[in-house]
C-alpha cells in the first residue's frame, strides 16, 4: 500500500522533471526522487540498499549535478526538433520491460527460484561459517568477496577516468595563461 503511494509520487516527480525547463529544479527533484526510492527500499526491508540510495543518489550526485550546473546555464534550451523517434523507442522499451516483470514471481514469494538457489545455504551456514548478524555484509564481503573487489576496482577506475579527463584540460589552460 505505502509502496504504491510512494511509487505514484515517484512517477509524478518524473513527469514534472520531464516538463520542467529549469535545471536547478530538475536537480532538486532528482534528489527528491532518490529519497522516495530510498523510502520504498526501506519499506521493502532492503535497508542497506536504501542507505546507499539516500547517500549516493540523493546526496553526492545532487551535489555533483549542482557543481556541473554552476558551469553551465540553469535554463534548458528548447530542442531544435521534436524528439518523436526517441520517445517512441523509450516508450516501447519501457513497455517491453513492464511486460517482462509480469512473468516474475510474486514479491516475497519464498518459493521463487531466487530463494531456492544459494540463499538457503547462506542463511543456514552463515551462523557457523562467518557469524556476523548482518547477512548482507557476510554475503557482500565474504561469500561474494571477488565481486566486491571488482566493484571497488570499478569505483577506482571511474575516479581515475575522471582525473584523466579533467586534469589534462586544467594543465592546458594553465599553459595558455603562461
Amino acid at each position, binding site marked *: 500500500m505505502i509502496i504504491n503511494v510512494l511509487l505514484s509520487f515517484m512517477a509524478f516527480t518524473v513527469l514534472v522533471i520531464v516538463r520542467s525547463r529549469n535545471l536547478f529544479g530538475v536537480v532538486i527533484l532528482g534528489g527528491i526522487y532518490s529519497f522516495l526510492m530510498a523510502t520504498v527500499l526501506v519499506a521493502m526491508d532492503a535497508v*542497506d540498499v536504501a542507505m546507499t540510495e539516500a547517500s549516493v543518489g540523493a546526496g553526492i550526485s545532487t*551535489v555533483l549535478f549542482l557543481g556541473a550546473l*554552476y558551469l553551465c546555464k540553469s535554463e534548458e534550451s528548447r530542442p531544435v526538433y521534436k524528439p518523436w523517434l526517441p520517445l517512441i523507442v523509450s516508450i516501447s522499451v519501457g513497455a517491453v520491460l513492464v511486460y517482462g516483470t509480469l512473468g516474475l514471481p510474486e514479491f516475497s514469494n519464498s518459493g521463487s527460484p531466487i530463494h531456492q538457489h544459494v540463499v538457503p545455504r547462506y542463511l543456514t551456514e552463515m551462523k557457523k561459517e562467518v557469524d556476523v*548478524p*548482518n547477512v548482507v*555484509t557476510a554475503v557482500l564481503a565474504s561469500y561474494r568477496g571477488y565481486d566486491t573487489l571488482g566493484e571497488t576496482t570499478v569505483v577506482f577506475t571511474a*575516479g*581515475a577516468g575522471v582525473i584523466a579527463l579533467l586534469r589534462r584540460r586544467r594543465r592546458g*589552460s594553465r599553459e595558455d595563461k603562461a
Partner: protein
Amino acid sequence: MKHDLILRVMAKLLIPFILLFALYVQFHGDFGPGGGFQAGVILAAGVIFYALIYGLPDARKVVPEPLVESMMAIGVLIYAGVGVAGLILGGNYLDYFVLDTNPVTGQHRGIFWVEVGVATTVSGVMLKIFYMFTDRGNVDE
C-alpha cells in the same frame, strides 16, 4: 556563502556528527545496515559539506589533494592485500578462514579489512570527483 554566520556555525556543529556517523556505519556494518561503501560516501559527504560552506581552498587544507588521490589506490590495495595475505597464510585468494587460528575470527578479520579498503577507495574517489568538478569552475572564471 563564505560570510554566512548561521551556516558556518551550523556546519561546525553538524560535521563532527556526520563524521562520527560515518565511522558508526563503517564499524557497525557487521551488525546493522551499512558497510564500507555507505561509510565512505558519508565520510566524503562530510568533507564536501565543509567545502560548500567554508570554500574549496579551506577543504583542500583539511584533506589535501595528494591524500585523496592516494586514498583511491590505497583502498584497492588494502582489499587486494587481504587476498594476498590469505595466499601467504596457505589459503586461496580472498580466503578469510586462514587469517586467524579460529576460522570464524578469521572471517571477522577479513571482512573488517575488506570494508576498510572499500571505504577508503569510495571516499577518495567521491572527494576527488567533487574537487575536480568544483575546481573547473574556478579555472574557467
